[in-house]
């Protein structure tokens, strides 16, 4: 039997088996940000530890930064404190920091691939659950906690149990108006928010093979929402073409050697899997969440499911969702009035996402009662968008064009929902209170669907706008 990419990467990065039975796994790329790293540096100082491989850790700031002005000190003194802490920690421990003046600041999971830091066959770790994003390049990428951030700083390793692998094959072709975001919401809806616990998801099949790198990132990004700590796509020509020429990619003279190794790390055709699931891409519609976890999702032309339709385990959460959202089982999701539209995040804040949203934004104007914002995922995304005139398109349609950051994905900066506002959001979590108001409500959907909702003032079917045949 052949090996999966996970088997090969695990083997190549295994330092040794620990007395506990876990693997000591070498981490090829460590990314840090301002929210989950300061306490790790504090532990480093308290325990008098040195950073083992300082050149393999890179830092950025994304969660707390304001998106209207970068004037220092930040108005929010706590945010300013966190920014100063990461500046000082990077300086004192010799870590490269992609801050504003570097011209590279951005959401950590947009940045890694964009700079060519994330590469196939690598292990990646970051104190952030959406580290699963980096699997799009054929990396094995873990979200970790702060104590583990300390471990990686101190040793460049994690003590970790090998996950099982579930291959998810999505066959067929996606219809017009259906995007990677719809695919991932569809997967989570079908396999559940806890279906992936203990698994790594290997995404495959015609739909995935035809996806661009950025679409694969959206797909892998939300693996964690399905309970899988990591997700990956086997590296192929699309991957190699994406990495080539990026700032931290292997230099041209070594590139072919790199490609040969990357190819060798992909899953063998006869690899064994712990589980395999097949889904039909043709049957995926633009998908919207109606509840309080990303598995509570339906096609935009479906009705909010009734409690009886859920497995016993999910019924109580469904009841909780009806109450929190104020939605009735059996009601249409289409036509649900929205107050805020948010386009951005590490799920859908890349240039291709903004392009798709801009196509829709060109077709109308944001309804006056809707506050709509577009927040690029990184400075590079912002620059690319500017070069194509996208900020103008969005502004003309009535969207605000902001500076890069996590923004209203989790609202640690000033961009927040107010009261029970309903937000059409291209982010990844519709948890209670996620977008900054303890009673705020989030409907997850693709960036094009968010733009459509902004223009209709209510949840709409983007296929109608794009001219359904």
């Amino acid at each position: 039997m052949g090996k999966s990419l996970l088997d090969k990467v695990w083997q190549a990065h295994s330092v040794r088996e620990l007395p506990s039975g876990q693997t000591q796994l070498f981490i090829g790329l460590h990314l840090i940000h301002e929210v989950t790293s300061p306490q790790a540096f504090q532990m480093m100082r308290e325990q008098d530890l040195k950073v083992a491989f300082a050149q393999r850790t890179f830092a950025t700031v994304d969660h707390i930064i304001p998106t209207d002005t970068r004037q220092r000190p930040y108005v929010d003194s706590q945010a300013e404190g966190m920014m100063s802490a990461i500046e000082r920690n990077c300086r004192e421990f010799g870590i490269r920091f992609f801050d504003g003046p570097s011209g590279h600041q951005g959401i950590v999971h947009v940045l890694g691939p964009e700079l060519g830091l994330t590469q196939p066959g690598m292990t990646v770790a970051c104190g952030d659950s959406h580290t699963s994003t980096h699997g799009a390049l054929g990396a094995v990428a873990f979200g970790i906690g702060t104590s583990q951030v300390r471990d990686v700083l101190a040793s460049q390793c994690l003590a970790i149990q090998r996950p099982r692998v579930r291959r998810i094959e999505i066959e067929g072709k996606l219809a017009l108006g259906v995007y990677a975001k719809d695919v991932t919401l569809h997967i989570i809806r079908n396999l559940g928010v806890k279906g992936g616990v203990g698994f790594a998801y290997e995404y495959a099949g015609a739909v995935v093979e035809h996806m661009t790198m950025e679409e694969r990132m959206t797909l892998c990004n939300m693996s964690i929402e399905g309970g899988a700590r990591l997700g990956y796509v086997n590296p192929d020509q699309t991957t190699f073409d994406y990495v080539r020429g990026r700032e931290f990619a292997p230099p041209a003279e070594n590139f072919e050697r790199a490609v040969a190794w990357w190819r060798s790390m992909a899953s063998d055709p006869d690899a064994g899997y712990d589980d395999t699931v097949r889904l039909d891409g043709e049957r995926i519609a633009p998908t919207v969440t109606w509840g309080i976890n990303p598995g509570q999702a339906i096609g935009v032309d479906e009705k909010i499911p009734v409690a009886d339709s859920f497995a016993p385990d999910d019924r109580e959460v469904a009841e909780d969702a009806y109450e929190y959202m104020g939605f009735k089982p059996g009601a249409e999701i289409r036509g649900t009035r929205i107050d805020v539209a948010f386009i951005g995040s590490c799920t859908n804040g890349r240039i291709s996402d903004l392009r798709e949203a801009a196509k829709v934004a060109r077709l109308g104007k944001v309804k006056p009662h809707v506050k709509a914002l577009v927040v690029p995922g990184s400075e590079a995304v912002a620059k690319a968008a500017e070069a194509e005139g996208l900020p103008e398109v969005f502004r003309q349609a009535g969207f605000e064009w902001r500076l890069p950051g996590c923004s209203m994905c989790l609202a640690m900066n000033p961009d927040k929902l107010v009261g029970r506002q309903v937000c059409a959001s291209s982010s990844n979590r519709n948890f209670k209170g996620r977008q900054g108001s303890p009673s705020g409500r989030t409907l997850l959907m693709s960036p094009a669907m968010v733009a459509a909702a902004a223009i209709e003032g209510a949840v709409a079917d983007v296929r109608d706008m794009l001219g359904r045949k």
Partner: protein
Amino acid sequence: MADLIPIKKVAGRPIPLRGNDVDTDRIIPARFMKAVTFEGMGRFAFYDVRFDAEGHSKGHIMDDPRFEAKGPRVAIVNKNFGCGSSREHAPQALLRWGIKAIVGESFADIFFGNCVALGIPCVSASEAKVAALMAAVEEDPAHDLVVDLETMTIAYRGKSYAIALPGGSRSQLLDGSWDATRSLLQGADAVRATAARLPYVAGFAKA
């Protein structure tokens, strides 16, 4: 470096925290993470579930006088507890509120690992056992619940229940190596050898 502290047994007053898929945003809302230390996180555990906009108690079980207790606490939870964000602020908040062990039907991967790294055992039991335990506690919460990692049982009011914990994590807790830094640093030579074998570490330069 931290001393090895074996964790064999945790005893404390139980507190049931009901619900499947309780995410870490709920355990600690992001706005309370704007700090560079974990100090004081305990007071924000489950904040929005416990308090209204004016900061008044909504009568959550954590604020119910019947379940008030001093000393260590053991939480009892349902399925997929701690899903979502990787924030260690969540187990830190629970720990600082007093929770030293968690018994549940199942746990999200990252949350589970974060808890082990803090020496908080997250042990699992079947749906029926958790339901029975929650009922027993809600009937009479004024006794210590004992989690015993050596016998892999928990005991409450004279009843004992079998629990499970993956072998690696169990031995880490039992031998005190749950703070993994020490063991990871002991492999420093092997780490350098592994790095040297990986072609990307040298940028795929010709060997």
